[in-house]
């Protein structure tokens, strides 16, 4: 059947002159150039998203530690308004890219947007952890990528989600090491180490299927070990004197502050 009709069509689709061939290729040229230009725009935006997300992460570290210093006892109601504002600015970049990544274009240029997307996910998941003490879900990230009308600014691949949230463990390690020598730090360290241990276990099942994930899992293991060792150091010191963190902290504070 196909071959019968094929004979007819084939004649229509024959390019029979030199000029016609050149013409066909000129169309290819503009198609290829168009897509290359598009990719270039996406790459640039992806770099912008990366840089801004990295800055959000630094900001979150500052706010989180300030929160602990202000009040290590109260239930961590630090205000992350400034970070949220910066995240909203990043979403403007996504918004501007929206039409470049519509329909099948997303998967066409996925590798160009991927680095920025992963860094963005790292930032939102860090904020989410600081606020909720939990891992942000796939839908959570997806929802963060919606505009006021609930329209998705950019599709989200499972791989980017997993690779992005994997990077969170490194930041949590940095956070825990800093937090640990503060008031209430021992509790924080234990929370983080339980959380990171959970992340590692949760992601182990995915790593054979997601490229690069096993490399990130190795980094997570290292981070986890660093947190565990820090928690150990605190525990060992405390064990010599007793178990009441807060009371001990008060004594130390009096010594230091006079």
């Amino acid at each position, binding site marked *: *059947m*196909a*071959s019968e009709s*094929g004979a007819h*069509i*084939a*004649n*229509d*689709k*024959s*390019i*029979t*002159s*030199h*000029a*016609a*061939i*050149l013409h*066909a*290729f*000129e169309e*290819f*040229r503009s*198609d*290829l*150039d168009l897509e*290359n230009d598009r990719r270039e725009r996406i790459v640039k935006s992806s770099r912008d998203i990366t840089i801004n997300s990295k800055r959000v992460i630094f900001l979150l570290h500052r706010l989180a530690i300030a929160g602990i210093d202000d009040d290590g006892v109260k239930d961590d109601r630090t205000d992350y308004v400034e970070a949220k504002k910066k995240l909203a600015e990043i979403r403007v970049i996504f918004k501007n890219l929206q039409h470049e990544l519509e*329909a*099948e274009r*997303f*998967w*066409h240029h*996925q590798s160009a947007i991927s680095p920025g997307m992963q860094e963005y996910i790292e930032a939102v998941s860090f904020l989410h952890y600081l606020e909720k003490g*939990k*891992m942000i*879900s*796939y*839908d959570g990230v997806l929802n963060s990528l919606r505009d006021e009308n609930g329209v998705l600014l950019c599709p989200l691949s*499972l791989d980017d*989600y*997993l690779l992005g949230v994997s990077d969170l463990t490194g930041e949590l390690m940095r956070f825990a090491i800093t937090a640990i020598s503060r008031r209430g730090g021992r509790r924080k360290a234990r929370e983080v180490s339980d959380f990171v241990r*959970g*992340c590692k276990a*949760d992601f182990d*099942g*995915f790593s054979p*299927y997601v490229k690069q994930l096993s490399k990130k899992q190795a980094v997570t293991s290292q981070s986890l070990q660093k947190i565990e060792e820090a928690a150990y150091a605190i525990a060992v010191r405390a064990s010599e004197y007793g178990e009441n963190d807060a009371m001990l902290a008060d004594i130390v504070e009096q010594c230091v502050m006079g």
Partner: protein
Amino acid sequence: MDSGDLEQLNALLDNEIDLKEKIKDFVSDFDKRTRRVQGALNKIHSTPSEDVPRLARSVKPMLDECSLSVSAIAGLVPEFEYWRWSGMWSFSLRAAAFGALFVHYLETETLLSLEGVSSVLGIKDEWKHKFTLQAEDYLHGLITMVNEMSRWAVNAVTLGDYERPIRISIFVKSIFAGFSALNLKNDGLRRRFDSLKYDIKKIEEVVYDVSLRRLANSPKKEGVDESPAPR
């Protein structure tokens, strides 16, 4: 992660893995079928002029089988996800495009357009977001055809057909001019385009040999008028 979230992720992942497995199976069939096409077209190098149409005809049913594979794969790909999976079959699709292009050339000595190749391979317009023939794949198929043609020019002379290289030369020069119009990245296509230059050089050498030995002189007069080659 709470268990609901984890389940969702697992469901998403399982979905992906399943789909990938299924596509892989169809692509493996597709691959076998395009190899058959290539194997059949490889006979061109020992086929006398008069048997060329018969050879072309014999390949058509094999192309139809390729279009069955195309249709099976297209049936699996979710809307908008062409680029997510196309890496799995692009090798085979390029081979199939080569087959369609070469059969068409053998029959008409003209270039089959991208739309023409799509149609021979049964790629439907409504699959726009899940299965299309991209310019890049079409162009790879075209270069494969030129590679084959430079070898054919050599073997045609061995088989006593001194006109063939000249007709091939004219056709291939147009293709080359077309390629020259493209702005390529430093990728596979650029490398293959560079290789095209050698094919053209080889064909030119054969034309040179044949012309200077004036072997092509006598049969030329009648042959030219019938040849639909562009200029």
